[in-house]
């Protein structure tokens, strides 16, 4: 695990939860949004590819009846990448789709978010704005769906 092993379990769990969150936000961001925010930061970290960005498939699974045993649903394109900063920190990305630049930027951001001196900056200027944008999209979709909410009335069929 890349998080230092000496940390006590709760901080480690917190660190993991934080990383899960930002990796999800980086993955779900649109490539354009991500590149725009990233370029504005003007960071040029030194890094080495541990895994060059590559596109493949992941088999999506569902559950029988929605909650039963797993079954293979169908595949999805996926691009992954791993970089190591000169400090030794490993950044990883797994992004739905085939956008290699998205995968590289997300892996670099994942690495820098684990570094003490860049974590706050990236959290505030990259993750937070992307998260807000995603939350707004969720809201907008919920609003559109809610506007089609319906109450059906059953009409009593006359007997007499």
């Amino acid at each position, binding site marked *: *695990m890349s998080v230092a092993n000496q940390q006590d379990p709760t901080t480690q769990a917190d660190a993991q939860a934080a990383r899960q969150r930002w990796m999800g936000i980086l993955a779900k961001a649109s490539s354009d949004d991500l590149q725009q925010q990233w370029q504005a930061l003007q960071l040029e970290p030194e890094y080495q590819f541990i*895994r*060059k960005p590559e596109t493949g498939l992941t088999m999506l699974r569902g559950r029988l009846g929605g909650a039963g045993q797993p079954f293979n649903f169908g595949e999805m394109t996926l691009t992954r990448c791993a970089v190591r900063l000169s400090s030794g920190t490993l950044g990883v990305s797994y992004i739905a789709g085939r956008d290699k630049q998205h995968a590289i930027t997300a892996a670099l951001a994942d690495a820098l978010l684990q570094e003490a001196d860049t974590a706050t900056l990236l959290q505030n200027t990259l993750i937070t704005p992307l998260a807000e944008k995603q939350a707004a999209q969720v809201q907008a979709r919920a609003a559109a769906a809610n506007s089609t909410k319906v109450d059906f009335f059953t009409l009593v069929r006359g007997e007499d």
Partner: protein
Amino acid sequence: MAVISNTLIAGFNDPVQDAQQVFRAALKAMSEPGTLMACSFTKEAPEGLDNSSWQLALTLFDADTKVWLSPALAQNDAVISNLRFHCQCPLIDNTAEADFALCNADELPFLADFNWGNAEYPDQSTSLIVQVPAISDEPFWTLTGPGIETQRSLRIAGLPEHFRADLIRSRQRFPLGIDTFYCCGDQLVALPRTTQIEEAC
């Protein structure tokens, strides 16, 4: 065991192209048994792996191939972490279930312990990758069979006697059998189950 990130090294520089080149080399090695091939698409291999066996692993192993490692490799963090990170291959304890086995020559189990395939699907056998101290075309073994025009000579150092004897005898069970790769540094040679082996001396 989790992947230990500071043991990770870079994989192929160009994953698609390089894996195809290595696959081509492996195919040539298998189809022209005893021919020495060189693979140098990676600069370094995890501590404990030869460069050629590492490249074979990057090319052939994936999430759907079960891999058995010989004891010293199975205890090697760098080997395990890099295989799991780059190949996602499940590492298993039972030789009989292995799709691939990656072994040091001095740790080879009995050939009978691997999966030899079955009459319906002889192709489902274990493919064996052995890391050896030296490979040369000095006369030691004389090879004949498909992919060899007349005969070819090959010397693979460090193979235990039981293994050499079993490998020669295993040809009697064709089409069942074990296909083998031998790796040393960048070098790669293969002996598929179709190759007849005679000890020259």
